[in-house]
Structures are given as C-alpha cells and as structure tokens.
C-alpha cells in the first residue's frame, strides 16, 4: 500500500482498532490530528500528502484526506516520516529535535509517548511502499 494513501489510512484504522494494547494505552486520548508529509522533489516525492484522523478512547473513530482544523498538526518532510516509521528516528526525538513541526499541546503529545510507540509498531506491520528514493525502505508487513 502506498504510504499516506486512502487505502493505507483505512488499513491503519483497521489494525489500530483491533489492537488491545493500543486501546489500553490510549484510552484517555480524545484528540484530532493532521499529518502533513511535505514533498521532496529532489528525492522523487512530488506531492504533499495531508491526512487526518480522530482518536476517541484508543480507537480511531474517523479518518480523512485533506485539511481540517485539528487539535494537533504535525508536519515535516516525507523522509522524516519514513525515518520515524521504519524506526531510524524516535517519534519523541523528532518532536523535541524539531524534525517535525508540531502545532498543538506539546506536553500532551509527549505524554502520549507510550501509545505513540505502540501505534508505530502497529503501522510497521502494514505492507508499505514509499515514494522515490525511499522505496529502499519499503516495509514487507505482516498480518497483525
């Protein structure tokens, strides 16, 4: 599945919502998110990808493509998202090192480190194809 595509989002929602551990870790979270994957034409990533989702008590209750006002907006170059997803860069490190531009309650985001970590583990199980030079990092995935 192409990283950031609608098909990918649907799979993210399905796998997240069937994960007991994530549900427990994120049971207090009720927030909306916008994720912006900025293009890197020099590296073969031509288009900006903007997706969003709503977390309600450990479940992703809604997903969408495009912009909406949300509690958190996280934006950064496509490659940084790839680094986070494949585990080369920790999510909290990306936040603190400003690899990602964070808009929203920063402390609240950092406090959700455990659920974020579990969520990334879930995402790594999805067979994922990256754009441009990042195709070298494609994830084979496995059934959750």
């Amino acid at each position: 599945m192409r990283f950031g595509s609608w098909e990918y989002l649907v799979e993210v929602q399905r796998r997240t919502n069937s994960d007991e551990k994530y549900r427990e870790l994120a049971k207090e979270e009720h927030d909306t998110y916008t994720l912006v994957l900025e293009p890197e034409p020099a590296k073969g990533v031509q288009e900006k990808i903007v997706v969003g989702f709503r977390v309600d008590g450990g479940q992703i209750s809604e997903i969408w493509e495009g912009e909406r006002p949300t509690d958190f907006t996280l934006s950064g170059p496509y490659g940084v998202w790839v680094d986070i997803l494949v585990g080369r860069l920790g999510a909290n490190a990306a936040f603190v090192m400003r690899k990602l531009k964070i808009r929203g309650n920063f402390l609240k985001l950092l406090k959700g480190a455990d659920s974020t970590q579990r969520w990334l583990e879930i995402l790594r199980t999805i067979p994922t194809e990256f754009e441009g030079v990042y195709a070298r990092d494609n994830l084979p995935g496995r059934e959750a």
Partner: protein
Amino acid sequence: MLAAVFRGAGRIELAELPDPVPGAGEVLLRVKACGICGSDVGAYKTGMYEPGIVIGHEIVAEVMEVGPEVEGWAPGDRVTVNGVIPCGRCSFCRHGRSSLCEEVLMPGVNVNGGMATHMKAPAKGLHRLPDSVDDHAGCLVDPLSNVLHGVRRSRFRPGDRALVLGGGPIGLLTVQCLKLAGARAVYLSEPSPTRRRAGEFAGADAVFDPLAENLYLRIDELTGGEGVDFVFECAGVPATLREAPMLVRKGGQVVVLGICEEPVESDFMTVVLNEVEILGSYCGPEEYPAAITYLARGQVNAGAIISHVIPLEELVPKGFEALAAPAPEPVKVVVEMPAR
C-alpha cells in the same frame, strides 16, 4: 435624563434619573451617540459591573454647561470622553503608565457613563472632536486608542507579518492599524462570515474560518513556512488564547487585547521551547489624541467597523441581545441618544 442602568447579568434598564449637576472641574454633557463595547457585552453576560451604574464609555457628546474651576471648555464644544481618566498622581501615572492608574475613573464602569441623554464628566477627561470625525466614527476613538496602545506596546515593526484572532471591532481595528503601521501581511481568523467580510473590507490580506480551515497550514502556505511574527488575540475567549502561542513563529510575540472572563489552560511548554513572548495590553488613555487624528484623516475606515446604528430605546433587544448571541451578526453597534 434617560439612562441605561446596569442592574446585573442580563439586566440593563432604561430609567429616568435626575439630571447630573457638574461639580468643580466637571462639565455637563449632552450625549449624542455611544458605542457598545465588548466589555459592556461581557458585563451583560457575566454581571461584572457594579449594579446601578450608567453604562457606556465610547462617547460622543456636546458640552452643555461647565462647572466651577473649568477652563478651556465652553457650551457647544463637541467632545469625546476618555474611557480611562487617570489620577495623574500615582506611581504608574508618574511613569507614563496611566492605563495602570491605581485611582482611575472609568466612565460607564466605576462612575456613571454615557449611555444616556446626559452625563457629567471631569473636564480633564475631555478630548475635542474635529468636524471631520462624525458622531458615529467618534464612538471608535476609545476602541481605536486601545488598539494603538497594544500595537505601540508590541515589538511590531514595518515589514512584519501578523495574525489577528477575532474579527470584532478590536480585531478589525487591529487589522487596520497594523496595515497602517506597514505590515507585510495581516491575516484575520474569525468564525462569523459577516465579520470575515468586514475583515476583507478592513484590509486583511487573507481571512480564515477557524472552524473549517487548519490555520497552521494556511499560514505556512501564505508565509512560505516562516510563520507570523505576531499574533494579536482580540477575541478574548479560551480557545483563541490557548492557541495563540502555538500560532506565532518561534521567537514571536503574542499580544493579548481581548479580555477573557474564564481561566484558560495553556501549553507553556511551547511558550518556553519557542521563546514566545506574551504581552498584555489594557486600554489606551494616552493614545486618544492619536486615535482622533487617524479618524480625522480618514486613515481608519469607520465604515468597516460600524455595522448597526440604533436608538437608545432599542438598546437591549437590538444591541445587547444581538451582540451577546453565540454568533453575533452586528460588529459595532452605535446607539443614538434622543435629543432633550
């Protein structure tokens, strides 16, 4: 005299009161028009004024009579009354910070104001209005002075970019003042479509609907990712106050002009990590002369702000009730007084 008397939350009554008699250093005024301020609406919602006070501090009036020991004023002079009349003696006044005066008189807040056919006022609080500032525009001197005070207190310089949160009269005047001050771009965020249109009319370079658009992304797009140097918070509600420090660029300044009557939970981690400055600004008694000059020269467009003119008799239904609605249709309501 006929006057609008504050009786408590949700209660403003028109009442016949004895005509005021000017004492030493005071004048008697025949009020021609008075604007409804956002703080008046706040008091109407929450009850924060003293019961029994005659409201109104955005006043245009004519001098009827001068009391003893008054010099420089005569019947027929057309004036506005400063919304903050400082004592001139306390340490704040002596250091040029009269908006922080410890013995301040505030017409319509702690002494009787101008939402009435007549009022008395200390002569030292009067400012002469030129003919080029009509009775309606004259009601904007007070809010414009508040805005000028805030802009002057800020680090704003020509070429800076700013985001204004809230398209009420203070927000719209802020847009105009920042443009006058040489802003590279001024953006306005406002949920009401009517007020967004007023924002365009006031000269905003772009207007956003915060309920439908992601402000962060819009600003990134318009500024090439640099962000805005200033956020002027003019809505006075928790949501905008909470978001303001996150909307300004690193090292930027948030100027708070809106008065919020509720506590606000905020993300001070972002304030620290991004070295964001937060600056409060209150009133602007020393900026009255400049505000009058801007209006007299037509540099501030009163027509973009004043949306409704109503008679005193309709003060509550068409003024306060309309402005206290969740998504108010009017922007600035000016009340005309009956001639007596």
